[in-house]
């Protein structure tokens, strides 16, 4: 935990810290705005501003956690010039994508269209669409929780990597 905090502190230290603050805040706000619409969109069957009517405090918090969390992970990773943690990036992006799934795949025409594109017959489409789409409806909360966990993990991985890099002597950093 100490290493994670140290990694975060290192990211926002130094002469370029205001630029880092600005980029993290700006990017975080853009991603959060997207998720403020995306997370409640399963209630209206697709990405639409009308979804904002169905935004709950819990979903708003989740959107902020995803948006600012991912921006933080990115800022930490971007600052770790000597040793960027690729795993952190993959986990963070995976988290962001997982949060998009319920709103885009449940109750939209994407799944039946994909089934049709793969040559499924009408009875197969009518008997299979629900089996797939309902997973995203039933486990929507789980998908969002997993996404937040993914983003949190990417922060931890990036911050630990950043702190570890900075604790190395200068001549060893160059060889990383």
């Amino acid at each position, binding site marked *: 935990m100490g290493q994670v905090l140290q990694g975060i502190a290192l990211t926002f230290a130094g002469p370029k810290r205001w630029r880092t603050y600005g980029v993290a805040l700006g990017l975080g706000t853009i991603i959060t705005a997207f998720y403020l619409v995306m997370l409640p969109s399963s*209630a209206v069957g697709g990405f639409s501003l009308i979804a904002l009517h169905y935004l709950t405090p819990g979903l708003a918090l989740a959107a902020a956690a995803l948006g600012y969390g991912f921006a933080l992970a990115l800022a930490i990773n971007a600052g770790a010039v000597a040793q960027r943690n690729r795993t952190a990036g993959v986990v963070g992006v995976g988290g962001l994508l997982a949060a998009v799934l319920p709103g885009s795949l449940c109750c939209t025409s994407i799944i039946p269209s994909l089934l049709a594109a793969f040559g499924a017959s009408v009875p197969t489409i009518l008997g299979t669409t629900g089996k797939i789409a309902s997973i995203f409806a039933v486990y929507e909360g789980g998908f969002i929780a997993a996404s937040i966990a993914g983003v949190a993990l990417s922060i931890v991985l990036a911050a630990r990597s950043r702190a570890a890099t900075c604790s190395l002597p200068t001549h060893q950093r160059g060889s990383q």
Partner: protein
Amino acid sequence: MKALRSIAFTTTLLFLAAFAGVLAAEPPGEGQPAPAFTYNLLDGSRLSPGTLHGHPYVLWMVATWCPSCQTGSNVVASHITFLRAHGVRIVEMQLANDLGQPGPGLASFHKAVGKSASSPNWYWGELTEAQTAALDPKGDMDLYYLVDAHGKIVAVSGNPAATWDAIAHFATTAP
């Protein structure tokens, strides 16, 4: 190279077959008459085409596990008096077998909407497999048809929670 060619050929054939299948399974469109089905209702009665004839109505297909269908039902519930005042009926039908994944069921879905769900201009029932294949061959959830008093489809859309304005416009302008 030969293997690549045969993969490309097979893929093309598959997509053509899928495309042909999708074209063959077109649901009724705007300007066409709505299919004259008799629907099985939740209370055990049947809704015949004669009952609907002469009234504009919204024929709406839902799955009971679908959150946008539940939200849409709540939106319709909040406007059911308005629809009734304009003589518009809602025919909300559960897709056969909930599109392959049984949800909580129509009775539970109906109950969650509250008292408005029992409005006399709101019919609740379940489509047979044949009706589902005819009305919604593409397996879209939350799809609805706006049908005028002459039984003609005026518009096909989806997600009443997101498109309520179109239903309200239909209610005030439908012949």
